[in-house]
């Protein structure tokens, strides 16, 4: 139950159905009705999205492409076209904006909306969800699933409940009961590892979770324990936050074959440096921390980072820091399958010339 002090909120979670794959099927009739995976089919590829036809074979997003092909030999791989997805994403956000300014996008194809007070002056959140779904279909020829409830956690569970093209409402009185029967692994924020840990503790369903004390949960799961305690009761006070501030800018790449020489690693870094630097330049973002991520052939992953006292002045400096971080892990004792560069400690302060005079 929500805190009695605040009025009951109305939150909608909108999730596009098999977004990337649906866009591809929309734009290429030959793909319709067939198992489609967006992503790279080659040895190191990963499925970014799978069509519903592919999902019946057990193909899931984030699955290694080789595994996906094993599960579904007829799987058709399509290269992702992010520019198109971004354009569609802008279209659906324009639809959201007709109803509320409280929009919290989670990714290109997913967002929370707070419609407690809405522009259309509609009293029914269910009606708003229905209209949004219809408008998305009209403008993009794609389907979305919507979940309506009194908080973010339940709205997300609801949108997942009737996928695809679903609309499901969890009313305040039904919240706790709805949570009871679900396996904990389906809860947003409880991943594979946490779910495994919960199962080991004898917690399988929402009901099992609710029977644990808050003290027990914080002992086993730290700060997240509070959150778990509350969501098991259908309580989630998190606000829909329209301007989540970006905390880091990153780019990474899994290589076709593992890299082992210094030269290959240095070369592998260049496009990543270009990527993050171009992004920061374009958005006028200043960054002070550079992090290098390295994943070895055995999937062991390490990061090395460095923070400097002023924002990065130019690409050369960024490159120099990346190279120094790289030097600190050389020579590598095994192949490197992935390199990543990310910038954090971001600020609006760009590298404008300082009027403070320097000594040397």
């Amino acid at each position, binding site marked *: 139950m929500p805190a009695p002090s605040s009025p009951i909120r109305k939150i909608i979670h909108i999730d596009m159905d098999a977004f990337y794959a649906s866009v591809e099927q929309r734009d290429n009739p030959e793909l319709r009705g067939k198992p489609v995976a967006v992503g790279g089919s080659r040895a190191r590829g990963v499925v970014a999205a799978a069509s519903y036809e592919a999902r019946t074979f057990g193909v899931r997003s984030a699955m290694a492409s080789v595994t996906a092909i094993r599960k579904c030999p007829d799987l058709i791989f399509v290269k992702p076209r992010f520019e198109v997805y971004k354009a569609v994403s802008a279209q659906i956000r324009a639809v959201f904006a007709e109803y509320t300014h409280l929009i919290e996008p989670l990714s290109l194809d997913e967002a929370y909306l707070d419609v407690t007070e809405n522009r259309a002056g509609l009293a029914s959140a269910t009606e708003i969800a229905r209209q949004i779904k219809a408008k998305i279909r009209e403008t993009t020829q794609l389907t979305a699933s919507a979940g309506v409830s009194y908080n973010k956690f339940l709205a997300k569970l609801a949108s997942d409940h009737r996928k695809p093209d679903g609309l499901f409402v969890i009313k305040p009185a039904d919240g706790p009961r709805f949570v009871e029967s679900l396996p904990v692994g389906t809860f947003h924020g409880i991943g594979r590892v946490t779910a495994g840990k919960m199962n080991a503790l004898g917690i399988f369903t929402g009901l099992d979770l609710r029977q644990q004390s808050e003290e027990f949960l914080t002992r086993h799961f730290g700060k997240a324990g509070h959150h778990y305690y509350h969501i098991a009761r259908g309580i989630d006070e998190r606000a829909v936050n329209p301007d989540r501030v970006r905390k880091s800018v990153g780019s990474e790449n899994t290589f076709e074959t593992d890299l082992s020489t210094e030269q290959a690693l240095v070369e592998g870094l260049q496009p990543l440096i270009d990527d993050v630097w171009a992004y920061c330049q374009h958005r006028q973002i200043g960054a002070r921390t550079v992090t290098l991520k390295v994943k070895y052939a055995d999937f062991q992953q390490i990061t090395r980072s460095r923070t400097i006292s002023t924002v990065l002045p130019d690409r050369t400096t960024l490159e120099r820091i990346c190279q120094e971080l790289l030097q600190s892990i050389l020579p590598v004792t095994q192949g490197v399958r992935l390199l990543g560069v990310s910038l954090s400690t971001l600020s609006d302060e760009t590298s404008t010339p300082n009027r403070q*005079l*320097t000594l*040397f």
Partner: protein
Amino acid sequence: MKFIVSSSVLLKNLSNINGVVASNPIVPILENFLFKIEDGTLTVTASDLQTTMTTQIPVDATENGSIAIPAKLLLDTLRSLPEQPVTFQIDTETFGTQILTDNGRYKLSGENPIDFPKIPAVNKNLSVELSSDALLDAINNTVFATSTDDLRPAMTGVYLNLSDDKATFVATDGHRLIRYRRTDISGSANTSLIVPRKALQLLKASLPEGVDVRAEFSQANASFSFSTTQLICRLIDERFPDYENAIPTNNTNVMTIGRTDLLNSLKRIMIYANRTTHQIRLSLKDNKLTISAEDLDYSNEANEILLCDYEGVPMEIGFNAKLLVEMLGNLSAKMISLEMSAPNRAGLIIPADKEENEELLMLVMPVMLNTYA
């Protein structure tokens, strides 16, 4: 292997060297203290590869041996124990360690001491004896002005020059510079080196007052020994900027003023300055100093007038108030003088009342003021 030691003595000694232990070290073994017992003396070592500290404690032990023990776990245990003799019982096969106390027994898994990095030997080229008070003064006067910018490694430490009649300590971050000299420390040969900031901060935290310190330097390392503690650090192998030429000599505009009056005024005015540049304006004319600041974005402004003793032509100069406040706050002199030549050249802050054996000079670069036509 087994030994008995007072919990509070061990805690005090470990706390002295614990600052070296990094929270997320490159080599996991460095999360441990290395314990080594030799003829009734326990030597504990902590290291982050760059800096190593050791401390020695007499203990009750019948055999010799070594073990690496997790630093955080051990310190947390000792901090919560009432003072008492505690017994360490170590299985040298499995490195399992048990701490037996009046309250109960605590079992923790140690690590193979062989894995702990070797302490670098300092093949001394130069050895200097000095008092801990002199060393502390030198550190306190300089270390705050070092740079934290890893891209300019030479400036992340304090430069030390030893000659036959004095020792010179210099720190700079590129915007300000401190030169501190002492005539009661000297070396036989003219030697220059750069000691990393972290090592000096660790020394500052662990050096007791009124003890003798032996400092030894080799090409690559420095060692500081005092009481039963030793700190060894790698020196920064870089060329220090040519600081002598950066200190202007012909400064004809000199303001002399009470240090705390100036400091307090700056602290108030600074509140109204731009939050990123902390830019303030000093206007000097006759025997009057006007300090002002404005933040154009928020239309905040403030100004104060202080009386001073000023010799020179009327001038206006801008500074970063944060730098000035930090520097003035680090001084103890009653009166200071600010010597300047031009609004685009460095200002020198010099304590008017000097300590014996000491000479201190602080330099700060100005901020270019907007000139409103």
